[in-house]
């Protein structure tokens, strides 16, 4: 086990962070809004943490204080929240694919800006972001509570009046409007909370990967997040979490399988070089075989009910 942790500590934390990030995309999707803006806020959060920790507080010997990381996360949350409202209010008048495209544009614009500013370091980015922990696995002490908090929030939200309003918006915006749900308010709310979560994850990630640059939080990230949510299942918060965990691990798992002895040489070679071919095919197949995602409310209900009354389930 310690050997396993040593080899996969980075991956395990990445999986948890991916799950949190997937939730940031899931929240607006609860209200039927496909927003691919999360990577933009993630990038922003990362830059905030990288700038604060390398430029505001000069690097000192030893570990970087964890309270400062928390402070950066808070700053990232506030900044992302404010930007989220600024972008969200006009953008959320758009629906469907149009919102997705507008948010893709937002992410691209942020990327070009970060390439051009001095404070973000252009293409080289910011490096030498100080470490708050002696070991990568200790990032779990922040990542896990973050995931749990976000999951609790999502779980509560799904059962609350606001959550029902969001779902009503997803099912039928006009009807929800008629029922007295203010679409703009709830959509902006979901979008902004998603933005804040993405910003916080970004802040933590800048430390976690030691550096931050314009290649972080781009369209590609958005695409991955969309896969996390939709393959995981977009009708319950458990879906994105599972999707983020599984799909982050998948390419590395394929690498691991290739290293297992006893495979024919060509197969191991293909697993190594063709890892992403398999990954792509698995994503496509996933959508075919799990049209509602891996985790659906019905599945959760069945699991829950199965434990209580087998008879009733029939």
């Amino acid at each position, binding site marked *: 086990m310690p050997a396993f942790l040593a080899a996969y500590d980075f991956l395990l934390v*990445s999986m948890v962070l991916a799950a949190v990030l997937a939730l940031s995309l899931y929240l607006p999707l609860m209200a039927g809004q496909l927003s691919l803006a999360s990577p933009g806020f993630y990038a922003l959060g990362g830059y905030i943490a990288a700038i604060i920790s390398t430029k505001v507080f000069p690097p000192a010997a030893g570990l970087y204080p964890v309270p400062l990381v928390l402070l950066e996360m808070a700053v990232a949350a506030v900044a992302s929240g404010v930007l989220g409202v600024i972008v969200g209010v006009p953008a959320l008048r758009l629906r469907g694919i149009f919102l997705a495209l507008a948010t893709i544009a937002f992410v691209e614009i942020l990327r070009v800006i970060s390439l051009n500013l001095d404070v973000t370091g252009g293409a*080289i980015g910011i490096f030498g972001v100080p470490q708050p922990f002696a070991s990568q696995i200790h990032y779990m002490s922040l990542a896990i509570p973050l995931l749990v908090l976000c999951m609790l929030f999502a779980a509560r939200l799904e059962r609350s009046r606001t959550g029902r309003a969001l779902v009503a918006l997803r099912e039928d915006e006009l009807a929800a409007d008629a029922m007295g749900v203010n679409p703009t308010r709830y959509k902006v709310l979901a979008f902004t909370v998603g933005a804040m979560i993405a910003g916080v994850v970004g802040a933590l990630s800048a430390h976690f990967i030691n550096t931050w640059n314009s290649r972080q939080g781009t369209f590609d990230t958005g695409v991955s997040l969309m896969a996390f949510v939709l393959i995981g299942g977009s009708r319950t918060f458990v879906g994105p979490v599972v999707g983020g965990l599984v799909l982050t691990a998948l390419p590395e798992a394929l690498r691991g399988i290739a290293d297992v002895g006893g495979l024919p040489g060509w197969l191991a070679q293909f697993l190594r070089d063709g890892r992403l071919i398999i990954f792509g095919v698995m994503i496509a197949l996933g959508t075919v075989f799990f049209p509602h995602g891996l985790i659906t409310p019905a599945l959760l209900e069945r699991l829950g009910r199965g434990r209580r009354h087998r008879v009733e389930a029939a």
Partner: protein
Amino acid sequence: MSRRLASPVTIVSLIAVLCGALVGHAADPIPIGVSVAQTGPVALAGQEQVLGAQIAEEYFNKRGGVNGRPFKLIFQDAGSDEATAINAYQNQINVAKVVAIIGPSLSQQMFAAGPFAVRAKLPVLGISTTAKGIPQVGEFVSRVSAPVAIVAPNAIKAAMDINKNIKRVVVLYAQNDAFSKSETETFQQAVKDLHLELVTVQTFQTTDTDFTAQVTNTLNAKPDLVIISGLQVDGANLVKQLRELAYKGLIVGGNGLNTTNIIPICKALCDGILVAQAYSPEYKSKINDDFKGIYKDRQKKDPPQFSAQAFTGVQVFVEALGALDKKSPIAKMDLAALRVELNKQLIAGTYDTPLGEISFKASPGGEIVQKQSYVAQIKMDPGGTSGKWVYVK
């Protein structure tokens, strides 16, 4: 890796090493990791690096490896992003238990993965990471890829020798590429230092295919010299479009253009580009002749810089291991000690490589000191299908 986790790992590996010693350990090949971009948009560089490393593996093993003990390269794809590079590193360090790692391909990836090597205390060698700040990532992080500080001004001087009337200079660079961004800063400084007029700076993206806007802006500035910092495909396309749209002056290309791979793209229009080279296939030495011979045999063309640097990376580790082994037999060292000692030996040594004679600075530890640097000009055959570099200085 934390001490708490490290110690069981160390014990396990110690036991493994001891057991190995009992059953003819000396014959076991020494694992050296190679983690470069085998997938993703940077794979173009990564694939050339793999070729160079593979040639080195065969070449040096045929010559007895590390004092008679063979070594083997463990390839783990570092992808084109930071997370994959870190995952590859973790795999090399903890699963494959290599003594040292070569790669990753991008400077940004090294900024991300390098600290993992620092924490695990094993030497890693950047072979194409030229951005400033790489050796500063920490002890154990070195590179054989020269930052362009020395070479770049030489290329401009060479241009000034060819055309004595150069005054107006346009600089173009790929703004989304860390290497080009670092390089252009050096070029721009050199332009100022040489009292030339920097009339405009134009940027592009490595993913761009159309440069007409930049070319128009360049031509409007009426330059005598154009300096391009980009990667091979975008750089060569930019050269091609500049020439097609009737730019007649001199072109200085950065190190990204230092590859035969630009020839199929700009063909006859490549003619006359001055390139600041960290590696030249024309460099005369036994090792470069050998390397170039093997490469040419397989690929029917001169080796590109990425392959030469990868070859050099392997060579440096092999020779450092050999030197270390002579001081104190490495078969008797546990892995952790071997890694630390190897790093010390690496930085202490001097190596005669295809890049010329290289050594490393002690401060910042691991920065390359490269004796030779080259400025060459591409001379294309009349048909425009093949060409070669001719030394300028």
